């Protein structure tokens, strides 16, 4: 018996075994390596920091928001403003990795791409200058005063983020994070959630801005409504806030008093197609790039009915938006219908002050034409002048806005306000969300927005 034939078959098996090793190695490198290499447990990511002093982050006026202190081989990331930027700048921990700007701009902060001329000499990473106004950020934080929610302030004409606060927050210093991580993660009010950018909430009546835009586009702004306080069609029944009945009202008055009857009727009659189209124009369901991770606002229906359209038209149903997106909605009206691409990082520069890149404002979506924006502007001024948003009046400045009181899975409504000022020449747009607040948007969220606007304009 000659075993050579079978030996050759064994050789073939061995050949396949070795081939599978090479194939798997290549497969791993092609499809899995990137995710594996950026795992926070991969200590190699921190090696660059040995030779680099991580860049400093400044507010728009040069106030230091984050800096690295070097003592020997130690690198300590300091946040002089404490918790104020935990949801904007994020953290930078050897154990838990990086988040927000510290993560997204990691390469820049480490000055990568720079050619190291000498070994073992400490290089400086690039510095970031943010669009944020530190005073305003602090003021907004104080205004929130420990209530869960978010405040977002934008410059309508550019999309610059002037302030962005989410609460609850946490101490982002690595030392505190590593000590308290489990407690932070297990807390029921989820302090790690950046509510302004990653919290999804029903926008409530603030979304009537979009419905009114749809009404304008379909030529229904001259309609009047017989508001008896309750919208009832096909078994769907929606009350006005506080069961108020407003009698015969036109669209402008319906917007000012935030009549659910009128806007449900509009949504119901315009139908799912128009309501979805308008939502898409405002960017609902679309991703947009931002300097930190942002959740996509969404309408989740497999098949939308007319009742669903009625609910979405008053910002309820399966419509969910982030506070940032609601602020962008207000800013779009202020900017003549053009929604600007929001941004946080204004310039990237070297430690010696040489500017490497500067963000240019860009239009994100052409939401509506100027006529429509002008019409919505009058409606929103009316809300503050003699509607649900009277709490937002500032003497000498015309404020435009829209309140919202959004029902949710609990019996404590979310309180919303979105507005901008001065109406003639808008310089700031603000959205305020108070999570599970239980009160009306006009009474609770409105004053925060007013104070933030006043503070900014008085500067």
């Amino acid at each position, binding site marked *: *018996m000659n*075993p*050579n034939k*079978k*030996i*050759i*078959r*064994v*050789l073939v*098996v*061995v*050949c396949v*075994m*070795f081939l*599978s*090793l*090479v194939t*798997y*190695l*290549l497969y*791993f*490198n092609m499809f*899995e*390596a*990137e995710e*594996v*290499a950026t*795992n926070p*447990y*991969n*200590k*190699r990511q921190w*090696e660059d920091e040995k030779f680099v002093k991580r860049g400093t982050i400044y507010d728009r006026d040069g106030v230091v928001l984050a800096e690295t202190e070097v003592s020997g081989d130690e690198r300590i990331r300091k946040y002089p403003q404490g918790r104020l930027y935990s949801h904007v700048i994020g953290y930078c921990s050897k154990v838990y990795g990086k988040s927000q700007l510290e993560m997204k701009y990691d390469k820049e902060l480490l000055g990568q791409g720079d050619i190291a001329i000498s070994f073992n000499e400490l290089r400086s990473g690039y510095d970031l200058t943010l669009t944020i106004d530190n005073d305003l950020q602090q003021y907004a934080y104080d205004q929130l005063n420990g209530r869960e929610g978010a405040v977002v302030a934008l410059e309508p004409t550019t999309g610059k983020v002037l302030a962005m606060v989410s609460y609850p927050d946490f101490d982002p210093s690595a030392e505190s994070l590593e000590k308290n991580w489990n407690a932070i993660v297990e807390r029921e009010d989820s302090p790690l959630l950046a509510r302004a950018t990653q919290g999804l909430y029903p926008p409530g009546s603030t979304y009537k801005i979009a419905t009114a835009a749809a009404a304008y586009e379909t030529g229904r702004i001259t309609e009047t409504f017989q508001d008896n306080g309750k919208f009832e069609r096909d078994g769907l029944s929606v009350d006005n806030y506080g069961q108020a009945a407003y009698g015969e009202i036109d669209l402008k008055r319906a917007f000012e008093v935030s009549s659910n009857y009128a806007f449900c009727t509009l949504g119901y009659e315009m139908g799912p197609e128009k309501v979805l189209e308008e939502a898409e124009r405002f960017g609902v369901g679309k991703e947009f790039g931002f300097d930190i991770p942002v959740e996509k606002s969404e309408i989740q229906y497999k098949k939308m009915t007319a009742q669903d359209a009625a609910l979405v038209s008053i910002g309820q149903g399966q419509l969910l938006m982030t506070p940032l997106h609601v602020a962008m909605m207000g800013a779009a009206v202020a900017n003549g219908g053009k929604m600007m691409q929001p941004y946080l990082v204004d310039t990237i520069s070297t430690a010696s002050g040489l500017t490497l890149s500067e963000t240019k404002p860009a239009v994100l979506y052409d939401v509506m034409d100027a006529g429509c924006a002008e019409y919505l502007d009058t409606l929103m001024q009316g809300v503050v002048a003699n509607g649900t948003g009277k709490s937002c009046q500032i003497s000498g400045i015309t404020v435009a806005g829209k309140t919202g009181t959004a029902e949710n899975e609990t019996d404590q409504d979310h309180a919303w306000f979105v507005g901008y000022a001065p109406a003639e020449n808008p310089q700031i747009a603000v959205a305020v969300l108070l999570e599970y607040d239980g009160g009306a948007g006009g009474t609770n969220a409105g004053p925060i927005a007013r104070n933030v606007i006043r503070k900014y304009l008085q500067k």
Partner: protein
Amino acid sequence: MGKFKGLNYRRPAYLLMLMNMFGFGLLFVANSYNPNILYVGAGLLGLFILMYTIIVLCRMGDKFIMLMACMLITIGVLLLCRIKIDYGIRQIMWVAIGGAAFFTVYVVYYNIRFWNRMWFLYLALGTGLFLATLLFGKVVNGSKNWISLGGFSFQPAEITKILFIMFLACYYSGSWNKPFLRLKPKWVTMLGTYLFIGFLVLQRDWGTILVLFAIYIFMIYVYEKGYGFLAGNVGVAAIVALLGYKFLYHIQVRVSAWLDPWSDIADKGYQITQSLFAIASGGYFGRGLGNGSPNYIPEVHSDFIFAAVCEEMGVFGGAAIIILFFLIAYRCFKISITAQDPFDKAVCLGLTLMFAVQTFIIVGGVIKMIPLTGITLPFVSYGGTSIVVNFASLGIIQAISAKEERGTGGAGHESK
């Protein structure tokens, strides 16, 4: 031997020397001019030239296997010097001893004709080594497989691998057909195999178990008529493996660390994830010799050295090592196929399978293709026993190859 044939082996030999000089030269520069690195490189180069000259001048058969093994050793020592210079220095000591073992084994194997009649000796020696390990052994990394003799430690399991292969070859070469205690040799061989495996289970040396079992299964496949016996053995092994998975915590940990190491990076998945981090950070071409951080990987100098190769020399460097091993296996298969003597043929096949299976198990484990079982990567990993035994195995293969090259002039095994 014609001129053309002479060129054939000289060119790769020059490449090997070039690789040695470039490698150690670069490491010398990258590692802040530590002169020890140059000494190690020069020592290694000297050893190669010496060994290779002897092989060529004495017409010792295949000239490529040793070349490729030396290439693997160069890469291994290069990385060991980079991981910790002490490892590199001690490793070339082992390479020198291994080289001596290579020639000794070559001469002894070549000149003795009755290897095929000593199955009882192999079995008794193997059992003796296992018993000694169990009685006097010390536990390293959860496996009790080291023996210390007067300040000098070695792993008996490495030696028993060769004994086991010789033992199998006695029966499968057809030289042993007398029953022992009324048991047919086939069954004695099987019992002997499971005796060895049983001892290894007691030592928790899962890697070696896999190697021995795979060699046995391939041997059955090649030599037994029909597939019933093969299927029976595989079937029983599968059932035992399943039971082992059910009841042995050791095995469960390994399987769960293979399926999802990411859920427990800090603890059970630590070794394998550190290895994957290294490979992933290396990319296709590696971070460069001296630029990576292989020291984050546990056991990087022995079982996990392949991960360090991938980090510093890239996936292509890793693939090159796999291909080198495949070429060695291929040359050895060729010697096995051309061998006239049935005992030589079986021994050569067994040793070839040992190299191939061992490489597959440890490389596959380190890249998470199969569950990880600790075992050394032949010629690359640090380790005295491993290097010496692998050289000795190569000595046997070289002797078989030399017999073929010289025709029947060598010592064929007497058959009864």
